[in-house]
C-alpha cells in the first residue's frame, strides 16, 4: 500500500520535471511494484516446484530414526550416502539383493532401442502424412489421435494375446513394439505438425531432382528436423524410462526395467519401510530423465515452439 503511493508520488515528480528536462532514457527505478510482484510470484512458484525435490534429497541423506522423529524440512544432521549405496547395490527384491543397478542397465537396454524405433516410425508417419498423402491417410491419423485418449488398460489384455500369438511375449521386441505403438499418436502429431511447417517447395524441388520417398526423407527432411527430434527424444526417453506397466508386463523377467525395481523396493507390502532408501531409490530412478531435462531443457522449449504450436 505505502509502496504504491510512494511510487505514484515519484512519478508525479518526474512528470512535472519532465516537461523541459526529460532527456535520454526513461528513468527506471530498481524496484517497481511490477517487478516485485513478478519476482515474488516466481519465487513462490519455484518453492512449490522445488520443495519435493528438496524433500527427496534431504530424506535420502538422513538416517531412519532421524526421519521418524525429525521434521521433513530439516537438513540432515549427518548427511550420508548409505541409503544411496544401499538402494543402488544392495536393496532387496525377494532374494535378489542387487539394488537398482541391474534394473538400470535393463532400462537402458529398453529405452535406447524403443526411443530410436518409435521416433523413427513416427517421423516417417508424419512425413508420409504431410508430403505423400494418400486416400485415407488422414482418417488413419484421426483414429490415431483419438486412440491416444483411450486408457492403456483397455489394450493391455488383447495386446498380451497378440504378443503371444506373435510369439514375442516376454522379450525386448515386445516391449519395443508396445512403446512404439503407444508413443505413435503424440509423436506422429508432433512430426506431422513440424513437417507441415516446412516449406512444401523443398519437397517439390527434391522430387524434380528425382529423389524418392526415402531419399527425400533421409537427405532433405531429417537434417532439417533437429528441433522436433530433440522434443521427441526427450519425451520418449523420459516416458519410456518412467514406464512401469509395459515393462513389467511385456519385457520379460530378464529385462525388468528400473522402475519395477523401484516399485519393489518402495512397495514392499509388509514391514516398516526404509524411507531413506525409498527416497534414494526414487531419486536414482529419476536421475536419468532429470538429467535429460536439465541438459536439454532449452532445446525442448525451442522444439516445442517449432512443432507443437501449429496444432
Amino acid at each position, binding site marked *: 500500500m505505502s509502496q504504491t503511493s510512494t511510487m505514484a508520488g515519484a512519478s508525479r515528480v518526474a512528470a512535472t520535471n519532465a516537461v523541459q528536462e526529460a532527456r535520454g532514457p526513461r528513468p527506471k527505478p530498481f524496484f517497481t511494484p511490477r517487478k516485485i510482484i513478478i519476482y515474488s510470484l516466481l519465487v513462490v512458484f519455484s518453492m512449490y516446484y522445488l520443495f519435493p525435490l528438496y524433500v527427496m534429497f534431504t530424506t535420502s541423506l538422513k538416517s531412519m530414526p532421524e526421519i*521418524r522423529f525429525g521434521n521433513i524440512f530439516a537438513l540432515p544432521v549427518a548427511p550420508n550416502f548409505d541409503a544411496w549405496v544401499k538402494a543402488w547395490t544392495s536393496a*532387496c*527384491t*525377494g*532374494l*535378489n539383493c542387487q539394488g537398482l543397478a541391474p534394473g538400470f542397465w535393463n532400462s537402458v537396454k529398453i529405452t535406447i532401442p524403443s526411443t530410436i524405433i518409435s521416433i523413427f516410425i513416427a517421423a516417417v508417419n508424419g512425413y508420409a502424412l504431410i508430403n505423400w498423402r494418400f486416400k485415407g491417410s488422414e482418417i488413419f491419423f484421426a483414429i490415431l489421435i483419438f486412440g491416444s485418449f483411450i486408457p492403456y488398460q483397455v489394450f*493391455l*489384455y488383447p495386446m*498380451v*494375446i497378440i*504378443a*503371444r500369438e506373435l*510369439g514375442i*511375449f*516376454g522379450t525386448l521386441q515386445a516391449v519395443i513394439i508396445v512403446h512404439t505403438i503407444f508413443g505413435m499418436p503424440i509423436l506422429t502429431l508432433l512430426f506431422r505438425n513440424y513437417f507441415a511447417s516446412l516449406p512444401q517447395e523443398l519437397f517439390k524441388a527434391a522430387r524434380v531432382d528425382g529423389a524418392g520417398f526415402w531419399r527425400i526423407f533421409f537427405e532433405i527432411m531429417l537434417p532439417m528436423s533437429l528441433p522436433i527430434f530433440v522434443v521427441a527424444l526427450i519425451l520418449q526417453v523420459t516416458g519410456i524410462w518412467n514406464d512401469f506397466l509395459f515393462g*513389467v*508386463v511385456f519385457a*520379460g*523377467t530378464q529385462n525388468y526395467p528400473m522402475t*519395477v525395481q523401484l*516399485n*519393489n*523396493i*518402495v*512397495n*514392499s*507390502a*509388509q*514391514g*516398516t*519401510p526404509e524411507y531413506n532408501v525409498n527416497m534414494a531409490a526414487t531419486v536414482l530412478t529419476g536421475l536419468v530423465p532429470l538429467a535429460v531435462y536439465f541438459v536439454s531443457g532449452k532445446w525442448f522449449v525451442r522444439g516445442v515452439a517449432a512443432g507443437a504450436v501449429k496444432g
Partner: protein
Amino acid sequence: VDLEVTHWWTSAGEAAAVSEFAKVFEEQTGNTWVDSALAGSGTGANPVIISRIIGGDPMGATQMNTGRDAEELIKAGLMRDLTDVVADMNIDSFYVDESLLTPCRYEGGLYCLPVNIHSWDWLWLSTKAYTKIGQPVPKDWNEYVASWPALEEAGILPFGLATGWPFSGIPGVLMSGIGGSDLVLAINRDKDVEAVRGPQFRKVAEALDSLRKVISPETMVPSFGDVGNQLLEGTAAGNIHGDWLQGDLQVAGGVPGKDYECLPALGLGDKLTGGGDSFYFPKLPEGTDPAVLQAQADLARILISPEAQLKFNLVKGSMPIRTDIDLAAANPCMQKALGMLKNGLLPSGDFSLSSDTQQQFQDLNTEFLDDDSITVDDYIERYASILESDE
C-alpha cells in the same frame, strides 16, 4: 537347470523365508532357483503373473491368489496337474485341514500346494497404553471395546490403523470372532444370504460400526509397521492385524507378554480363520527341457516337505501346513495359535468366493469405514446382495 519362481514376498523377513525354500531346493536338487519377486501383492503382481501365463511365457512356479481365479487358468489348461507328482506323499494325511486343499482341487486334479497358514484373526494390544490409563490389558474384544473411552480421554488412539490394505482383513476377523464359526461357514462356505440378514451378522456389522467411530483418516499411518511402533510406544492401544505383524514387533524389540499382548480370534472364539499362500505350477510350453519339468516336480515336493516347512515357517512367522512338525521354538503367541489349530480351520473368504465378490466386499467395507452415512442396515443389505450375486 534354472527354475523361475515368482512371488510377492518382497519385504526383508519374507525374503529371508523364501531363501530358506530356495536353499533347500538348490541343495537337494542341484538346480538353480531363479527368483522373480514382484512387489504389490494381489494388485501389483497378480496381473503380471496372470498375463505372463496367458501370454505364453510361464514361470516354473508361482505364488498366486488362491481361489476361483486360478480355476479359470486351470480350466484353460494352463496349470500343471500335480496329482501324480505328490501321489506317493499321501498329502491328505499331514495337511492341517483338508479345507486348505479344497481350492486347489478341480475336477479330480490337484493344481496347487498351500505352503503355510496365515491368519488375520489377531487382536494386538499395547501393554504400555494400558499401563498409562491404569487398567489391566483386556482379555477379549468386549473388554477392549469397553476401555476405549478411557483411552481416548488419555489421548491414546484406541485403534491404530495404517492406510490402504491393512483394513481389508478386519471385517473378516470380526465375523469369525464375534459372529462365530457357524456364521463364517454359513457365509463363506454356504453363501447363505439369510445368515447375513440374521442377528449374528448384525452384531458383526455393529462392531464394525463402533470401530469406524474411533478410526479417523487423520490418524492413519502409512504402513502397518508404523502401527507396530505405535503399539510399542503406547500411542495406540490396539490393532487387528495378521500374524505377520509379529515379525515387525519382534524386529522392533518388542517382547510378547511384556510389551504387547496377542489375542487370537479376538479372545472370543476357539478356531482361527485360515488362509494360506499357495504355489501353482504353470504348464510349461511344448518342448521344454524335461529336466525343467523334473525340477518343477521336485520343487512341488520340497515345498511341502517337513524340512522346508520347518525352516520356512519359523522365519516367516506363519504356521506350517503339516501337523507333524515340532515347533517348540515358536514364541508364546504362535504357541497359542498352534493350540487353536488343533480345532481345525475356518475357511476364509477366498476359498469359495470369487475374487470378483471379494473385491466387491472390500469395496463395500472401505466405503462403509469412510462414509458414516451408510447405516448398519444399508451395510447388511448390500452385503447380502453381493453375496447373492456370487456365482
